[in-house]
């Protein structure tokens, strides 16, 4: 029994460390949201704008705050949380450190949905037409994935279905670009695909918030199953987890969170791939423990990148997906090298 005591306190310590990490990450996200509101292209008195806004005065600063700054900051946090969380969930579920939110083909399908709206010329007539098209694409993709992978509980079938779907959506997007009526339209699509949070409105926030929230709940509910899946599917099933339900929750949750994210912001790569790797060493590699911290760190990363975009002198501003890829790709290469060294 003596040996039990230090171990019990070690596990209590790691639980405490886990809770501490979540608190610190949440504080970081809150600070970055404030920074994102405060930092912009024009000098801006945030407190007085906030006072105007709260008092219901429709002054120009209050409008800028409500129509531009706050939606941009909130969307950064929402999209980042979705990407980080989905990355951690998919890496845990597929037991593959190179899985990212795009692996199920949902991002590509959401992008395709939005591109079809562009292509159909609907984007100009309704401000939410683009994100709605993206959400429709993601929904169809999730349906297709669930049907394709419905037989058996194997994860390989899921990956293959995702790769197939991703290729198909990519090919159709390329076709749309190829057939674009003019080069300006093609350019607009290409820029949109790079991902950005600029010029989004509160309508975008209200559109994606409920979908993302539902997706987060579905994915967070699988935390324990992900822990059990560290030992393989048979063992997880023997521990009492219904793997069909787990897969359904993960695919649907990922589609809701990432699909609506892509729909409002375009494709933002590498966040979902990189963040779980930063979190894992801090939580003892337990997949279920990495979910909340990955979501929060994802939010911090996207907010940070979006702030950097506005601080960089490049005009027009760089696209968000370009910045995250520029930071993420070298990280990925480093990761591959480290893994090679270990095995």
């Amino acid at each position, binding site marked *: 029994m003596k040996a039990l005591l230090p171990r019990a306190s070690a596990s209590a310590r790691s639980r405490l460390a886990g809770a501490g990490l979540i608190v610190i990450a949440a504080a970081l996200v809150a600070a970055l949201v404030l920074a994102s509101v405060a930092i912009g292209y024009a000098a801006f008195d945030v407190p007085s704008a906030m006072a105007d806004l709260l008092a219901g005065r429709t002054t120009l600063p209050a409008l800028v705050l409500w129509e531009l700054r706050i939606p941009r900051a909130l969307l950064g946090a929402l999209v980042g949380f979705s990407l980080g969380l989905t990355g951690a969930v998919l890496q845990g579920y597929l037991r593959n450190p190179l899985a990212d939110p795009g692996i199920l083909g949902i991002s590509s399908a959401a992008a395709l949905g939005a591109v079809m709206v562009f292509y159909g010329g609907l984007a100009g007539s309704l401000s939410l037409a683009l994100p709605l098209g993206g959400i429709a694409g993601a929904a169809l993709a999730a349906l297709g994935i669930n049907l394709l992978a419905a037989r058996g509980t194997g994860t390989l079938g899921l990956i293959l279905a995702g790769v197939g779907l991703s290729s198909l959506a990519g090919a159709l997007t390329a076709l749309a670009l190829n057939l674009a009526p003019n080069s300006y339209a093609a350019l607009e699509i290409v820029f949109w695909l790079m991902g950005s949070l600029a010029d989004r409105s509160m309508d975008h926030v209200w559109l994606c918030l409920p979908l993302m929230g539902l997706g987060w709940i579905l994915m967070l509910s699988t935390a324990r199953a992900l822990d059990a899946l560290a030992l*393989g599917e048979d063992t997880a099933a023997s521990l009492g*987890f219904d793997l069909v339900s787990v897969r359904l929750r993960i695919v649907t949750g990922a589609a809701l969170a990432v699909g609506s994210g892509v729909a409002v912001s375009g494709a933002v790569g590498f966040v979902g791939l990189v963040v779980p790797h930063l979190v894992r060493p801090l939580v003892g*590699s337990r997949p279920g423990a990495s979910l909340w911290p990955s979501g929060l760190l994802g939010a911090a990363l996207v907010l940070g990148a979006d702030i950097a975009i506005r601080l960089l002198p490049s005009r027009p501003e760089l696209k968000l997906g370009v910045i995250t890829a520029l930071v993420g790709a070298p990280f990925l290469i480093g990761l591959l090298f480290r893994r090679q060294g270990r095995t």
Partner: protein
Amino acid sequence: MRLVAEAVGVRIGRTVILGNVSLDLGPGAFVGLVGPNGAGKTTLLRILAGLLPATTGRLTVDGRAMASVRRDERARRLAALFQGAGVGWPMRVSEIVALGRLPHRRAFAALGDADRAAIARAMRLADVAHLADRAEPTLSSGERMRVLLARALAVEAEILLADEPITALDPAHQLDAMTLLRAISRRGIGVVAVLHDLTLAARFCDRIIVMEDGRLVADDRPDAALTDGLLASAFGVAAHRGTAFDGTRYILPWERSGPGTKEMG
């Protein structure tokens, strides 16, 4: 707990994977499940664990149909050890063993005192207490096997089903693992292990179940089950039999029985 299979079978399309297997498992015995590759041992183990539904026959837990037993109750009463998948992440040993408590924990509840006590017992039994803070990739194969066994023991189930628990181990660790599995069965837990080493199976198990081509061809005490005729027909080997220096009888698969001997059984 009694786990009873009555004429249990599995077919995929028209191929019979497992046909008409009947057996009765209870507490306190160490049962070796043997048979050549492809005989259906792992399929049978997965059926017994409730992970694969039988397409024919009946599987009951204390008289109730397995299908009607709730998933969480099944998980608490039946532990299964599958090693093929390994451990996906570099988790700490104590956290791996703690996974065995998942069936006992309510949603969002942290580990309780009963859980911690069970984890400590399991780690002591499998002799991995000193590895508690090691990360999984730093373990040797023998240590990893004992850690995964401790994980299965932490469930504190009534029956433990183990798929090839000793296959990857060196001789010393194989002996350790078989001794441990027998010791666990002496504590009242029913242990069923898929084994390939007939010498160790015959020496340590109380009972041997032999599978061949998806059928159960023998289910008896080791010396009664592993007859020369059965070794030739099911495994295609002839065994040397002898007496060890401590007086124990042993069998040792020595050579392939010649072509044509298949008809003898």
